[in-house]
């Protein structure tokens, strides 16, 4: 497993170094920033949709709660971003837990449907409380976060803002990876596979589901706060059902229930709308075609299918091997 650890370290260093490599071109740097945001968001959603088997269609709405809470605290109460962001994330997490309560009763399709309703209600809420959201006009000129240094403040602009997003994305991926390898992660997979059996074995399904909702919504909120302060502009459209669906698409495209899946999905899907701007006539066709192709030929997602292929090949080799005990470490 030494080479695997080396690969993880190399990937981390690459992720943290990329902003500097793209620093010369604002356009590419911006796409990179968006990519980091979606890595963060999709990894957080994956915890619910991939590992726990619940599709949270209200994910963008929760991100919106995190974003609006943070923006209001920063712009109206002059709170530092670094204090406001955790508050916003916590608000998103609490709302996420409350709105996740239907999942204790609803399964599969019906939960997804309830998520759609909740998402729609949240979007309406953002439109109808203009004192906090400026309604459909949106809030513009949101300042970038800054780091208070002794004597002065250092605003995170340009490459430093992308680097901040890179750090946030890397930390989120590590957090999700750590969770999936913990007892909680094992329980979440068990709940996804068979919640009734899991409960019968002595595992508190309700508690673990609520925990998954809390963490996933927390990440949604963190992403929302960063999104607002990265784009400098938010409106209810930023956090509508399409954003939820896009995030989910990324997770499914890369591979649900895998750590690298959302990253692979983001790297392929997030930059496309920007990179293909010149081909605006065909952009959506290419995007849609890619998704159709993946759904048909790689139903487990790009990375998920790769893992599956590797596992079945290893199993076939183990079955053919005369010493099955040695086949696995």
């Amino acid at each position, binding site marked *: 497993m030494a080479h695997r650890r080396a690969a993880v370290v190399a990937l981390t260093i690459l992720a943290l170094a990329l902003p500097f490599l793209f620093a010369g071109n604002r356009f590419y740097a911006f796409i990179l920033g968006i990519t980091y945001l979606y890595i963060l968001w999709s990894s957080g959603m994956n915890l619910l949709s991939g590992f726990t088997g619940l599709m949270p269609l209200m994910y963008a709405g929760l991100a919106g709660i995190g974003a609006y809470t943070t923006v209001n605290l920063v712009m109206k109460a002059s709170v530092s971003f670094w204090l406001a962001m955790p508050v916003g994330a916590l608000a998103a997490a609490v709302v996420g837990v409350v709105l996740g309560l239907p999942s204790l009763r609803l399964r599969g399709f019906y939960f997804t449907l309830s998520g759609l309703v909740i998402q729609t209600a949240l979007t309406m809420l953002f439109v109808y409380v203009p004192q906090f959201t400026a309604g459909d006009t949106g809030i513009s000129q949101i300042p970038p976060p800054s780091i208070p240094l002794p004597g002065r403040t250092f605003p995170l602009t340009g490459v430093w803002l992308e680097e901040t997003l890179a750090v946030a994305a890397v930390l989120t991926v590590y957090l999700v990876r750590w969770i999936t390898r913990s007892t909680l992660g094992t329980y979440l997979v*068990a709940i996804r596979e068979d919640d009734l059996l899991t409960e019968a074995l002595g595992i508190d399904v309700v508690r673990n589901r609520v925990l998954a909702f809390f963490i996933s919504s927390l990440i949604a909120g963190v992403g929302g706060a960063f999104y607002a302060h990265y784009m400098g502009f938010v409106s209810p459209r930023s956090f509508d059902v399409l954003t939820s669906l896009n995030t989910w698409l990324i997770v499914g495209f890369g591979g649900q229930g895998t750590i690298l899946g959302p990253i692979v999905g983001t790297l392929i899907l997030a930059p496309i709308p920007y990179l293909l701007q010149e081909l605006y006539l065909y952009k959506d066709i290419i995007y849609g075609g890619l998704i159709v192709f993946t759904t048909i030929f790689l139903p487990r997602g790009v990375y998920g299918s790769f893992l599956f292929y590797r596992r079945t090949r290893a199993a076939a080799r183990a079955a053919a091997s005369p010493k099955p005990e040695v086949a696995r470490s």
Partner: protein
Amino acid sequence: MTKLLETRGLNKSFGGVSALKDLSIHQDMGETLGMIGPNGSGKTTFINAVTGHLTLDGGEVSLEGKVIRGKRPHAIAQAGLERTYQAVRVYAQLPVAENLRVAALPHYRRLGYSNPLDGVDVLLAKLGLKPKKETVAGSLTLFEQRRLELAMRLISRPKLIMLDEPVGGLNPTEIREMIQLLKDLRTECGLFVIEHTMKVIMELADRVVVLVSGEMIANGAPVAILQDANVIRHYLGSIRVTSR
């Protein structure tokens, strides 16, 4: 003496249909209790109600003298009362070892182990599943899945396992093996067995309870039950009638 399991006046109805009627059943320590009855007589409902999967309309349930009624299923499992399902239930996508790890995780600290998989090899060897440790549970045979299901309960050292038709779908050879397996387990934990296969009940149970329409119509030693006129009319006889 405290009973292993004791229910008093259990009542449960679905809409207007009452599935359990004032059911008072007890199981002594070290006793293997069997339960038989026609389809729809409330046997599975009884397990569901006792293990917290259903909320009762009335009645008391206690395990070793401690009230467990009203607790959620996971808490009842933690207290030492576990159940299996009529249709076998394992994590089909996960390997056998991972199935057992999930089953052990909520219990291993209480049992004084430092690793959830401590003792798993001994358990697998006892159930003849050792060569299958890394196999995905979904590709096991039904008999192997039934044994895995048992192993997933035994790893938590329960006081009582309620088995809902443990030999359902097994062939005669496998049934004989399963009976032997369960016989050996009787020294480790209490067994409560629902079965339609009388051979299992006859060989395994110390005492049998007969349920018809949610009511207990007979209660006694297996041999006596076989000769009970009521039981023959309501249950044993009905097999001959329906099979023509």
